């Protein structure tokens, strides 16, 4: 121990044998024998040492918060490293798990995106068929004149049927009567007018159909076909092939009252 060697004449302030009993007996006599002369400078020196101790303790306490690793020894550092390794492994596993989950979610998102695109495509197709959206594309324009007022709904319906047979995808009459599955034709009140699903159209009738012009035009023109029927009633039928036909007229969307979808 550091402070065992003391001068004989001075009682040791902090020299203590390990048991209290021994201390009490062998130091009591010495203490009585010696009144200490105290220089002021020594007192100041003690104060300085105490101040140093207090200062060091304060600094050390502050230090521990700052960086605790520098005081650690290698064994503790190894322990710490092991702990960190374990934590690291655990976190790596977690990362893998989460990555897998993320990939799962991403692929399912992709799948649902594909499904959505498919559904959108079907919606677009069906919207054109149902006449709830406008349409643009190549096609033909038929112009029927009816100077005698003898062309009725049946001729117009036949013309529309021929176009449908030839693959027309969207049909409009006089620019505002869109022809869809539910469309009906009836003779109007005045001659030279026809009701198309309740909308009145008047001669000359202009039928625009989007489809393959090369197929649509012959379907109207063929011998004994619609063209001849119109001419036999004193009218004329002109067929134009157009690269772009834009149909903006919409049919009223019908919500089925009785029919229910199967799917």
């Amino acid at each position, binding site marked *: 121990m550091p402070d065992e060697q*003391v001068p004989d004449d001075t009682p040791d302030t*902090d020299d203590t044998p390990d048991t209290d009993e021994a201390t009490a007996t062998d130091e*009591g006599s010495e203490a009585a024998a010696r009144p*200490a002369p105290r220089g002021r400078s020594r007192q100041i020196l003690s*104060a300085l040492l105490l101040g140093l*101790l*207090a200062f060091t303790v304060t600094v050390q306490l502050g230090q521990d918060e700052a960086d605790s690793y520098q005081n650690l020894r290698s064994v503790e550092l190894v322990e710490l490293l092991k702990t960190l390794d374990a934590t690291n492994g655990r976190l790596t596993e977690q990362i893998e798990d989460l990555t897998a989950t993320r990939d799962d979610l991403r692929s399912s998102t992709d799948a649902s995106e594909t499904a959505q695109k498919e559904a959108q495509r079907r919606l677009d197709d069906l919207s054109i068929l149902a006449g709830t959206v406008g349409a643009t594309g190549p096609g033909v324009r038929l112009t029927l004149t009816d100077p005698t007022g003898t062309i009725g709904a049946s001729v117009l319906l036949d013309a529309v049927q021929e176009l449908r047979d030839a693959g027309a995808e969207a049909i409009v009459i006089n620019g505002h009567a869109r022809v869809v599955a539910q469309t009906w034709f009836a003779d109007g009140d005045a001659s030279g007018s026809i009701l198309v699903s309740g909308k009145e159209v008047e001669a000359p009738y202009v039928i625009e159909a989007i489809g393959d012009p090369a197929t649509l035009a012959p379907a109207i023109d063929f011998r004994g076909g619609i063209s001849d029927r119109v001419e036999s009633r004193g009218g004329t039928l002109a067929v134009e092939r157009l690269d772009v036909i834009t149909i903006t007229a919409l049919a009223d969307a019908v919500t089925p009252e009785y029919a229910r979808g199967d799917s």
Partner: protein
Amino acid sequence: MIPVLGLVVGVAVGLVLQPEVPVALQPYLPIAIVAALDAVVGALRAVGEKRFDDRVFVVSFVSNVLIAAFIVFLGDQLGVGSQLSTGVLVVLGIRIFANAAAIRRRVFHA
């Protein structure tokens, strides 16, 4: 009275300056503090027994600190630094407890 003043001033300076402990001193500082505490507790006991001596206190304080630091230094050089510093701490702790017990008996008679 003056020593108490030194204590207060030391705490204040430490709190105000907040200095960094030099890296070279870091392993020795804690042990040195415990060694100094041993000297201080011993001095308190001596004061209680009315046989306190400034000179002994100063010498034992300084030598305690130096020897404790040297032992730790030696232990680090020998590769048994942690064991040796634990040993030093145990011994100093026993001494502090013994002195504290003596003070306690004198003050509380228990």
